[in-house]
């Protein structure tokens, strides 16, 4: 059991407000990803859980116990840092063992734990090496082993894969998912990479400017965004969003991969004619940029690669794939009939 709760948490760096009145519950055993652009407060939140960057005000609970003023080492959490923060003067074994020694774990027990953990992360052969002789991926594993050996209630990870090359990152991603499934502890993972978040998370908490934009499973957040920020932060390319001609206060959007292209006028709910401005062949699919006569342009991701630049095509989207947003960028979920009539009339 390790549920994390933030209650009315604020964080100021001097005069700068980073987080204001944030309430959040991270459920026990989930792989929760804090996602957002840099400076959105996600790392700040993670450091609050770790206790190395205390909240300015508000309370933090772990399993219902108030840990707001508990020192980091007594919280039962472990953290993997972006640059690993391995102790450079100690061997791999020394690094893994250090926390155990501080907690006065007996020697035999320590040896057993180190053996087990190094087995899991594949470091057995490197236990007596210094970190400076290891590769980036191996150092990453040392940091992971150091966290695992403490058997924490919560794993905190601050962009742990961002210093690895693309191939290794994909491999480590899979390993972390497997590790989570094996350990069944709560993982809190910070990243700005939406692909990483979508791939790994049970729950994504999307933040911007210190405010939680949306919380939910990757599929929920992707399919049913609460606001324009969420709709455009997730997905590559982001959701097409443009204002309606007759209702300037409302914006409509659809995902590039939900739109269709055709030469003939389709019978779909939303349809508009435009010119193909660019065409990017991505392999399995092709990305088109289409300019409408009124200056609006949209991206369409299509499985068909037969359309050419400068051709006139129809862009279509079905009624259930359209999202509407109000002036403040929030999703409109009720009273859509009037708006749908406007869109349906757009030519």
């Amino acid at each position: 059991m390790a549920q994390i709760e933030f209650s009315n948490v604020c964080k100021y760096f001097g005069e700068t407000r980073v987080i204001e009145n944030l309430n959040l519950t991270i459920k026990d055993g989930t792989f929760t990803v804090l996602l957002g652009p840099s400076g959105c407060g996600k790392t700040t939140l993670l450091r609050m859980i770790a206790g190395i960057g205390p909240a300015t005000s508000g309370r933090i609970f772990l399993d219902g116990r108030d840990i707001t003023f508990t020192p980091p080492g007594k919280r039962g959490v472990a953290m993997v840092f972006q640059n690993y923060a391995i102790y450079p003067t100690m061997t791999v074994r020394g690094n893994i063992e250090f926390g155990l020694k501080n907690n006065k774990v007996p020697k035999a027990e320590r040896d057993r734990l180190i053996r087990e953990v190094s087995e899991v992360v594949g470091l057995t052969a490197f236990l007596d090496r210094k970190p400076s002789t290891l590769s980036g991926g191996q150092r990453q594993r040392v940091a992971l082993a150091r966290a695992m050996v403490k058997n924490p209630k919560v794993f905190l990870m601050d962009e742990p894969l961002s210093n690895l090359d693309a191939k290794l990152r994909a491999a480590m991603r899979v390993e972390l998912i497997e590790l989570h499934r094996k350990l069944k502890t709560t993982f809190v993972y910070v990243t700005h990479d939406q692909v990483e978040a979508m791939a790994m998370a049970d729950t994504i908490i999307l933040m911007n400017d210190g405010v939680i934009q949306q919380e939910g499973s990757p599929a929920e957040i992707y399919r049913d965004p609460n606001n324009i920020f969420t709709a455009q932060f997730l997905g590559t390319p982001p959701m097409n969003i443009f204002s309606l001609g007759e209702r300037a206060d409302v914006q409509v959007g659809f995902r590039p991969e939900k739109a269709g292209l055709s030469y003939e006028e389709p019978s779909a709910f939303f349809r508009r004619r435009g010119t193909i401005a660019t065409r990017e062949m991505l392999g399995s699919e092709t990305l088109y940029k289409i300019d409408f006569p009124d200056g609006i342009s949209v991206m369409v991701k299509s499985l068909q690669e037969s359309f050419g630049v400068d051709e006139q095509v129809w862009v279509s989207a079905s009624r259930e794939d359209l999202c509407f947003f109000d002036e403040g960028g929030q999703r409109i979920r009720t009273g859509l009939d009037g708006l749908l009539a406007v869109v349906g009339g757009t030519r």
Partner: protein
Amino acid sequence: MKQQQEPRRKSFTKEKILPYIMTAPAMAFLLVFTFYPMANLIYLSFFDYNLINPNKRFVGWRNYYELFFVRKDFLNALQNTAVYTGAVVFFVILLALLLALWIRKDSKFNHFVQTCAFTPHLVAMLSCAMIWAWIMDANRYGLFNTVLSFFNLPPLRWLNSSATAMLSVVIVSVWKSIGYYCLIIVSALKAIPAEIYEAAELDNTPRYRLFFRIILPLLSPQLFFLLVTITINSFKVFDTVRVMTEGGPGNATDVISFYIYRYAFRHFRIGYASAAGTVLMVILMLLTAVYFRGLSRRVHYQ
């Protein structure tokens, strides 16, 4: 095959000579100003020579015999130098480290303290020694004794007593060099990433373990450098002693450099002074070698 090898051999010889040509100017300087004086020092130590009479008389190992077995003052100077060096090395490293740990955080006050500690390094040793000679004046004019008398404590004789003279000289040397060495340690401390401390905090590290197991090993290259340079500099101490005590009272603060100076330029016994200089050089070489052998394995270079 042969045709291919020919130009390679040519460039090979060129490659062999070129580095010597490039380093020749520096080597010339080294030869003239370092190696020749060193060789000459050793050469002269086997002669009886007084700067005035151009005839040098070869005396073999007599000068060395006199240093160690006839006169007692050389061994005394050697002992004083060892005491001085030991005290300076110990207190400078200890105090510079403590000061650095105190002022490592960036703040206006800490910058002020750092500037204050560094300023003595900018003042000529001679001026410092003069000022300290006044501060430690044995009469009631001296600053320390004025303070002592203010608290109704008996005055100390500082530089005028063989019991406290060496201590006084050590105090001045430590005071003068602490800021400079502190600066080196502060910059090393600042180079330690904040995440290391945070990771240690998450590892529930007690403060003493943080210092001895993480901070100190990370400072070891700088501390080792300090140990070697302070040792060498202290062994060669001259100006402080020359201005403040002239080796006295008695010969309580007589150190090797001052001893050499005395015999060379007051008694004009160049050969004998050269022998003392050679001994100093050999001691420094041995000490440095011992440091590198004994400690370099415990120094962590990143």
